């Protein structure tokens, strides 16, 4: 009898293992969301690097959990959020609406039964916001280099 596992069986077992931690994972992701909402609520009007770094540290910890919790759009939203926070820190700017829409989207996408089309629409909006700041950060980097 050969040792080891066939690929198909191993992948299936790994998926089943991930399924078993779904409830814990959902609870931890929700706890991170609450932390993030609390952090967002305390933000002032001006640029505050350490506050944005704090939000980044929370959001980045959630990436990867969405897939396990059965909410893969959350991973995309959190990646967009981290990109946005990275761009804002690079630009040394603060945009309450852009940050707020990501925090609200995280909450919405965590709700059970979000229709696929609705989730896609939310993600589309987030990606547009992110793209705006990405373009500004790229332009700033280009002018710094020149």
């Amino acid at each position, binding site marked *: 009898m050969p040792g080891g596992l066939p690929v*198909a069986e191993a992948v299936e077992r790994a998926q089943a293992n991930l399924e*078993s931690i779904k409830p814990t994972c959902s609870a931890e992701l929700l706890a991170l969301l609450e932390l993030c909402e609390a952090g967002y609520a305390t933000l002032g009007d001006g640029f505050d690097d350490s506050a944005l770094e704090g939000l980044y540290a929370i959001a980045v910890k959630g*990436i990867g959990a969405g*897939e396990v919790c059965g909410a893969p759009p959350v991973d995309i939203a959190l990646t967009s959020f981290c990109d946005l926070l990275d761009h804002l820190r*690079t630009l040394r700017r603060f945009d309450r609406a852009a940050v707020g829409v990501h925090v609200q989207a995280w909450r919405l996408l965590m709700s059970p039964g979000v229709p696929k089309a609705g989730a896609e629409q939310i993600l589309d909006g987030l990606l547009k916001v992110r793209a705006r700041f990405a373009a500004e950060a790229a332009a700033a980097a280009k002018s710094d280099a020149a």
Partner: protein
Amino acid sequence: MALDASSRARFNLEKASILLLDDTAMGMSILVQIVTGLGAKQLYRCNAYEMAQEVAQTHEIDLAIVDALAPSGQGYDFVQWLRRETQEPNCYAPVLITTAHTPTSDIVRARDAGGHFIIKKPLAPVVLLERIVWVARASRPFLFTGSYVGPDRRFRDDGPPDGVGRRREDLVKAEAEAKAQAEGEAQPEAEAPPERSTG
């Protein structure tokens, strides 16, 4: 090289010593569930850089799966340390770096850390397995330079770009053309066809 998730090909991680580094309980839990599902049994779970250092100094490891540990990026520091400061065989151990997000300021750090692959989260079991198999099969030469220690990062051989010849062939062709031109300039008459008399 994509791994077919329905493949019946077998592999064995049962005897592999695997170092896992992730500073969040959730991240570690996801990683552990995946690698144990893939058949790994001997795991060193480290939730901090220092803990991973201790394991790497006291145990032989066959594989390390290291999270970048954003936002500090200490995971990259650990891989660099592993490559430069540990004894054989650990300094050559296959390293997969996982990352949830890479800030712009960390891109160079990620590239130069010395890992074999960087895998973006969310982690899919089949992707992780694919990378493990890939790293086990491919023997990439190790480079030791002042600024980089790790596997050769130029490991893809896609051949010459479409429609473009190999550089070596271009060189031979260019040399032949230059030689022909030089000979032509030196003896123009000899090359010119004799003029016919029409008279």
